[in-house]
């Protein structure tokens, strides 16, 4: 296991890439712990401690998961990558609705670059909205559920209040921009996809603290959770790697005096073609009712609809309604995302163009139908598996009594960690392969 590591570091440009990625991660973590100007670090720490001890339902738990604990500390990078994810989701959904975006997507590289640019603008717009919302929530004390009124998070200084608040909002917005840039730099010059590496970092950064809090309740529980976690990780790795190989035979053809083709390959259809994106979509959507309740505050007690939502979607995250909706949403989004990313007609057309065919199936439309049939059947177990893994922590809340969504060894966290880890290792391996070294994965 260690020899690929050594050879990875012996290769000069791979070493450079790895070190660059590590440096970017270090900057990211530094910014995530540094309090924004105007925020009292000691007061925030006291509030966090109190909220943890009272074990009330943390409202922004999922957001906090993605930002690696930076959100509740109101640090410079408090918003994390969430605005970028939200912006990507919005644009991804809009491509289905708006014909112009659909056209851009089909245009290939240049169109894709334009969509990315739109995503960047939208990210900053969302960042301004979210940062002002969080600063407002923090100032009114609602961020911590009104539990620590005597410790103001943004205390009075000699500077006028409006200037402090303005600086806070603008700093957080710029921080989001910086995170976006860090991610792009990692994608460009480092290893792996920058955004997912950053999410990976912030989730991994939480694990020790979560583990410790479980350890403190009881060591036996900790060992049990660890065992379950390892099982779940094994299961996730197994299913992430699973794929169906549809054989493709290429016809031999003569170009001039040279012979081309005649090879047989396969199209890998992964069981979970969509990755963890459905889980992120679904949890982002389910976080909306919590946000509404939070913003309505006291008014929520009068409206019967809001009370119902509050009872089933906010108070207890192991409520059957919540778990059921989450599960169904994940299945829906898995199919949705697979249909966006994998287009059987396009694949079939491409195969036909280069003289390829699936043995026993005629090229063109029948092949497309065949691929579609296989894909929709293979996605079903994939979707159910995603749903089960994501819902797992909600079912285990009673057993562990931990911190709801933050339950470290199940659900979104494990999916993201394993998914990103596999992807990154594969990329390192492909770099190693170019120089004929043996890789990590066999």
């Amino acid at each position, binding site marked *: 296991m260690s020899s690929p590591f050594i050879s990875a570091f012996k290769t000069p440009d791979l070493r450079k890439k790895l070190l660059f990625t590590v440096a970017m991660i270090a900057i990211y973590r530094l910014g995530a712990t540094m309090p924004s100007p105007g925020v009292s670090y000691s007061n925030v720490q006291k509030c966090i401690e109190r909220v943890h001890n009272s074990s009330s339902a943390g409202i922004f738990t999922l957001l906090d998961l993605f930002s690696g604990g930076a959100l509740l500390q109101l640090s410079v990078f408090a918003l994390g990558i969430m605005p970028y994810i939200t912006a990507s989701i919005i644009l991804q959904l809009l491509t289905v609705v708006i014909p112009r975006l659909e056209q851009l997507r089909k245009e290939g590289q240049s169109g894709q*670059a334009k969509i990315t640019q739109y995503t960047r603008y939208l990210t900053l717009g969302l960042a301004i909205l979210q940062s002002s919302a969080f600063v407002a929530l923090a100032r009114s004390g609602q961020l911590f559920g009104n539990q620590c009124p005597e410790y103001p998070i943004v205390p009075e200084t000699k500077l006028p209040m409006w200037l402090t608040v303005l600086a806070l909002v603008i700093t957080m917005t710029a921080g989001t921009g910086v995170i976006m840039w860090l991610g792009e730099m990692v994608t460009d010059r480092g290893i792996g996809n920058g955004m997912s590496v950053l999410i990976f970092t912030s989730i991994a950064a939480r694990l020790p603290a979560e583990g410790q809090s479980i350890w403190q309740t009881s060591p036996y529980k900790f060992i049990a959770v660890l065992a379950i976690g390892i099982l779940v990780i094994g299961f996730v790795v197994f299913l992430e790697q699973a794929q169906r190989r549809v054989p493709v035979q290429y016809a031999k053809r003569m170009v001039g005096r040279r012979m081309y083709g005649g090879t047989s390959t396969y199209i890998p259809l992964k069981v979970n073609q969509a990755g963890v*994106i459905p889980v992120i979509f679904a949890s982002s959507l389910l976080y909306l009712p919590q946000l509404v309740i939070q913003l309505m505050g006291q008014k929520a007690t009068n409206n019967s609809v809001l009370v119902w939502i509050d009872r089933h979607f906010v108070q207890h995250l192991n409520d059957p309604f919540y778990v059921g909706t989450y599960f169904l949403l994940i299945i829906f989004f898995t199919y949705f995302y697979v249909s966006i990313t994998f287009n059987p007609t396009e694949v079939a057309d491409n195969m036909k163009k280069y003289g390829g065919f699936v043995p026993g199936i005629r090229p063109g439309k029948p092949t497309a139908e065949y691929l579609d049939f296989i894909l929709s059947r293979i996605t079903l177990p994939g979707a159910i598996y995603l749903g089960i893994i994501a819902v797992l922590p909600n079912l285990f809340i009673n057993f562990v009594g931990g911190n709801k969504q933050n339950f470290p060894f199940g659900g979104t966290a494990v999916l993201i960690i394993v998914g990103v880890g596999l992807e990154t290792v594969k990329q390192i391996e492909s770099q190693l392969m170019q120089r004929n070294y043996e890789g990590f994965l066999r």
Partner: protein
Amino acid sequence: MMAFAYTLIVLLVLTSILLTMLILLHRGKGGGLSSMFGGGVSSTLAGSSVAEKNLDRYTVLVGIIWFACIVGLGLWMKLAQNGAS
């Protein structure tokens, strides 16, 4: 001391805006969600141009000033609070 704080906070606001602008000027390399979380294999091997390199340099420079402003303001706040209590 007040003049120092005012300078810092104004500088912070200015650098934040500048930094955001500079970052938006960059060519997006994220590729959106499609390449995220193992969605697909896509790698663009295009090297960065000279303009992009200069842009990088300016962004890093502004970023360092921005960072320094935040740290400076944080220190000032701590000192001011200790003086008050």
